[in-house]
């Protein structure tokens, strides 16, 4: 038979199994209600626990700050989607000790002999990790957690240095990087002087997270091989007339090919050709010229150059240098040029490589400055913006016919161009900071957009690529208010607080949002001309089970409600007042409330969390790494290279080139997980799905006014538990389907109460909302408690929770 145990159940079961272990006190998965603990409160244990003296400090500096606070707490909080797991944390700084206690308990839980703290986030647990793979086995994060477990569970490794200690940045492995589609077109243009759109027609590169530059996924599939052949043959033919070749097709001979190999081929290879390579091309030319004539000989050589692996892959293999490898002069030139221009080295850079000068730090820095100060950086900025904020998708994002008429192909182009021109203006003509990018009160538009942005005044200052226009006071700010971004993050037929909240959460804060759990109705609210979008969507963030996730998204997305589905300002919706107040929550340092997109933009522009995320994304984008790459130390190093405060975008690129790992490589086996294939984020693990055969949830309908009891989780040696509920609390179980039940809880007493109820549940709980559940390991009793938003009931107040069981 199939395993019918869901992930949640195993975690809950893990608590029970684990609490049998005498050496570890087990706290409740969340703070127990203060008014109802009578038996198990007080000091942890009489017997000394295993551990190291500085465990708490280790936890704070190595586990909490770099890992849990940024990557886990969004879901693993009482309001998060993993609120029913054994690991429920609090984002506030004052909860450090409570979080430590939770994690100490989690550290002791094992499944299949492996601590779940290691198997879950690496998605190697047999039930996977609903939040996906967060990092690789043996990554720094992994080793840190391994040491944490060793310390708090076994009392070992107390003296060992923390693996995450950033004395050295994780080195990159030797590798080759296939040109992305965008790099292909840019390189062809610089190489042949031909505007190529071939790359755009190639099978799309793999997007891991947000960007398509993850080197581990850039491979040549059969389809791409065919496409690149076709492109090369076409470009070679065009080169005869459109490119600057050493000879005409009719006069091509061996001497001409020699010149071609010195020039075009060396530039394509981004290094001089070896003698062997030269003779291969000469042989090719003479064999074909003798049969098919000089012209076909020449085009075949050019087509071969454009398909050669040396052209298609950037080499980052390096030369031996001490205990590692150092990129050679030509590899260095390419690394700089692709990072800073998205294309092959120009003549000056190529010359600096040829002479070896590029290996000198001052020469290299001068080259970096030269490129950063020129417009050759623009394609890189555009590519980053296109992907970071989905700007390129404005060209094709499907819309209902009613607005499609306004969003013509020309307007779509102009909207994308607006975002590109704006970024170039910020970088070259203004402060160049992330803050300005996010909060500028102006944009740079093509005048044809004035009717589209009807609230913008028609006078603007002419600048390089359009006119600089001021936004009406209080209407919009920064790039998130561009119609390009707002249209992409919307529904086909309206705005979407969900999509826009997710945009900010994932792309500005680098938080990974888990998908809705299965068996949750996820219907979008029906279009209703008598209500605002916000009113329709508000159910999401007030009702379980949607609330646990949507409370993280929608209150941010509501800030954009003055913009319709294609980014136009609206003062009212359906003649109703728009409420654009909102809240940022569950972030390390950026929690705040705001009213409207302008205030939201200012909050984001000043957020340390957003700055760190921005730097991290530039590293991923520029270094060709996927979201599971180990960047913990590198981000620290980068931030130390940057001035305090609002990062200047070009400074971020500058810092990447100055990082100690930029030109250094090590063999694959000396890295941890960075060379892994990030191409899949498929389901992890195996488990059953809900059965369809009948059998009731527990108990049918019952009513109990029981009092007393003990809401704490029973440790071994505690007296057996009885069914019951908190003082003054009554409850009624309503079975809603064969496997699910809804429970009404009422405070019938005269004082506020932190409620709990306990009754038998004969099967394992699969889904749970509006409550936490603690199964008793000695019986089938389960104790339910409220979550932070419904934990306390005033007299006469009621709440409702529900659950489904595994049948």
């Amino acid at each position, binding site marked *: 038979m199939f395993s019918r145990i869901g992930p949640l159940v195993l975690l809950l079961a893990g608590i029970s199994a684990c609490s049998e272990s005498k050496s570890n006190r087990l706290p409740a998965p969340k703070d127990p209600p203060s008014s109802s603990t009578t038996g198990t409160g007080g000091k942890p244990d009489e017997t000394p626990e295993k551990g190291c003296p500085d465990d708490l400090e280790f936890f704070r500096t190595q586990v909490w700050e770099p890992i849990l606070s940024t990557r886990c707490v969004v879901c693993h909080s009482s309001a998060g989607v993993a609120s029913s797991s054994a690991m429920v944390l609090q984002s506030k700084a004052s909860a450090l000790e409570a979080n430590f206690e939770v994690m100490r308990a989690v550290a002791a839980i094992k499944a299949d002999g492996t601590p779940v703290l290691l198997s879950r986030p690496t998605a190697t647990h047999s039930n996977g990790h609903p939040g996906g793979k967060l990092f690789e086995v043996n990554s720094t994060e992994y080793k840190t957690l391994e040491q944490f477990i060793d310390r708090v569970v076994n009392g070992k490794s107390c003296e060992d240095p923390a693996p995450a200690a950033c004395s050295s940045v994780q080195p990159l492995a030797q590798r080759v990087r296939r040109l992305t589609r965008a790099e292909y077109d840019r390189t062809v243009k610089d190489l042949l002087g031909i505007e190529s759109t071939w790359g755009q027609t190639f099978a799309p590169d793999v997007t891991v997270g947000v960007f398509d530059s993850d080197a581990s996924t850039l491979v040549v599939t059969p389809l791409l091989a065919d*496409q690149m052949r076709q492109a090369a043959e076409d470009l070679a033919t065009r080169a005869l007339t459109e490119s600057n070749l050493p000879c005409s097709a009719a006069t091509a001979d061996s001497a001409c090919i020699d010149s071609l190999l010195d020039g075009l081929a060396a530039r394509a290879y981004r290094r001089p050709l070896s003698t062997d390579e030269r003779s291969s091309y000469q042989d090719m030319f003479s064999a074909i010229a003798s049969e098919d004539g000089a012209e076909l000989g020449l085009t075949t050589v050019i087509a071969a150059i454009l398909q050669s692996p040396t052209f298609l892959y950037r080499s980052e293999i390096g030369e031996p240098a001490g205990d590692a490898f150092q990129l050679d002069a030509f590899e260095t030139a390419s690394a700089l040029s692709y990072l800073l221009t998205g294309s092959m080295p120009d003549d000056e850079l190529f010359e600096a490589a040829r002479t070896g000068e590029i290996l000198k730090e001052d020469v290299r820095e001068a080259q970096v400055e030269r490129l950063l100060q020129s417009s050759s950086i623009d394609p890189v900025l555009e590519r980053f913006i296109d992907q970071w904020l989905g700007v390129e998708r404005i060209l094709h994002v499907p819309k209902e016919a009613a607005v499609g008429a306004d969003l013509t*192909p020309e307007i779509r182009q102009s909207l994308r161009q607006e975002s590109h021109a704006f970024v170039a203006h910020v970088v070259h003509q203004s402060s160049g900071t992330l803050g300005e990018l996010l909060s500028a009160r102006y944009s740079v538009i093509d005048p044809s957009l004035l009717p589209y942005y009807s609230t913008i005044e028609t006078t603007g200052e002419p600048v390089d690529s359009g006119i600089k226009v001021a936004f009406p006071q209080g209407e919009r700010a920064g790039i998130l208010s561009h119609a390009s971004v707002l249209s992409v993050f919307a529904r086909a037929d309206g705005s979407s607080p969900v999509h826009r909240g997710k945009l900010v959460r994932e792309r500005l804060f680098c938080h990974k949002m888990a998908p809705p759990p299965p068996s949750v109705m996820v219907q979008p609210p029906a279009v209703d001309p008598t209500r605002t979008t916000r009113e329709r969507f508000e159910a999401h963030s007030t009702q379980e089970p949607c609330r646990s996730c949507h409370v993280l998204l929608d209150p941010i997305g509501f800030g954009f409600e003055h913009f319709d589905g294609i980014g136009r300002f609206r003062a009212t919706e359906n003649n109703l007042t728009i409420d654009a107040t909102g809240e940022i929550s569950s972030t390390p340092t950026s929690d705040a409330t705001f009213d409207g997109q302008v205030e939201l933009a200012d909050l984001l522009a000043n957020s340390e969390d957003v700055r760190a995320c921005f730097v991290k994304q530039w590293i991923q984008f520029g270094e060709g790494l996927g979201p599971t790459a180990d960047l913990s130390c590198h981000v620290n190093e980068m931030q130390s290279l940057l001035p305090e405060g609002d990062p200047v975008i070009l400074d971020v690129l500058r810092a990447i080139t100055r990082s100690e790992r930029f030109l250094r490589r090590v063999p694959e086996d000396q890295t941890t997980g960075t060379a892994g294939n990030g191409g899949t984020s498929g389901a992890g693990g195996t488990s059953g799905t809900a059965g369809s055969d009948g059998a009731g949830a527990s108990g049918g309908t019952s009513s109990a006014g029981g009092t007393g009891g003990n809401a704490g989780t029973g440790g071994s040696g505690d007296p057996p538990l009885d069914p019951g509920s908190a003082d003054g609390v009554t409850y009624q179980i309503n079975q809603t389907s064969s496997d699910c039940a809804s429970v009404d809880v009422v405070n019938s007493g005269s004082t506020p109460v932190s409620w709990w109820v306990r009754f038998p549940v004969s099967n394992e709980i699969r889904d749970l909302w509006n409550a936490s559940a603690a199964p008793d390991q000695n019986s089938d009793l389960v104790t339910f408690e409220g979550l932070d938003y419904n934990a306390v009931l005033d007299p006469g107040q009621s709440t409702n929770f529900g659950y489904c069981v595994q049948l």
Partner: protein
Amino acid sequence: MPFTRRQFATTIGLGLLLGPWASPNRTARAAPSTTKAKRLVVVFSPNGTVHSHWRPTGSGTSFSFPSGSILEPLSAQKDKLIVCDGIDFKIPSPNHEPGMASMLTGYLDGTSSTGGMSVDQYVASVIGASTRFPSLELGVQTSAWGANVQTRMCYSAPGSYVPPCDDPVAVFDRLFDGVSTDANATSRLRARRQSILDLQFKELQAIRSRLGSAERTKIDTHVESLRQVEKGLAPVGGCEKPDSPAFLDPYNNENYPALGKAQMDLLVLALSCGMTRVASLQWSHTVADPVFNWLGIGSGHHSLSHIDDSNQQGVQDFVTCERWFAEQFSYLLSRLEETPDPEGGTLLDSTLVVWAKELGDSRMHDCTSVPFVLAGGGCFQTGRYLECGGEPHQKLLVSICQAMGLENNTFGDASKGTGPLPGLS
């Protein structure tokens, strides 16, 4: 993928091995038994279903598609179909992405006997060696979000996507590349391309020798891909080059119907010309939000797919969209039925067509009772409504393989089920 000795061998002197690969007469020889299908076509359309509007009435051989239901457009072809109800993806955290990734792979697992390949690729690895394309992947607007676990369904290994081509003109150019009536010109073109390939193989080996094992895999993939290009050097024979389809922006939502029709026509053409025996057609991808403006529906497909029964108009709009997909499936079957198999009968008689989805009830984000429709192939008794009662989809994938003459008894995660789907054959 390991770099085998065979692959090295092909890097030298390939001219000697070129020749009769793509001749339709030669490929048509292959069917091992009259009860096996000769070709496999997998069709995907996204975002689950609403069972109450999908299910036929009746059971077994006595069933019908209710008026207004999703499958009603297939009524005329009912006798050629098997409607498979009650097939579950028994996977952790069922949802859009795990559903998409597991649909054809039987769950992504490199350790399984099928190596994490999707069923089309696995079948192609056995029966596709003799054709120009071991398999052909066609798409309709699958790629606006790039290639990722949402947008891809065909895998050559865990994490290795086999991408579809979304542009019918590019598909056409690829199919008929190098086809010329001038035999000498064709042979010279082939020689020039071969010399380029030889140079590529040589350089790849030089690069490979300097890299570690993960990076070598990358190079090996490239070598494997070039071997397929090499196969394409031979002329396809058999088929006259027809007119190219008209160019349509492959990303423009309004071109969706025309792009789909062009791709289906090309798919049938490629099968009938013997260029491949395994093909797939992927409509959008999971979570995709195409807007069916041509039906007067302004909400995106993904939004519609999540509408609850309380919103009757919304559900009706979704059903209308789904009926449109059924019409497209019907068109594909008709084209296969009217196209002769060179060996006799129609293409549909000898082609197993599978219409797959990635979710069951889209409102619940689950993978329970994922709707499958099978057609043609001559391998299963058609004209049936099959209630599978929660069988794991791995069994369906085994059945598909066995229908194609393969002998594997498991597919993907064998712990969920082994052997073929009971009641299918």
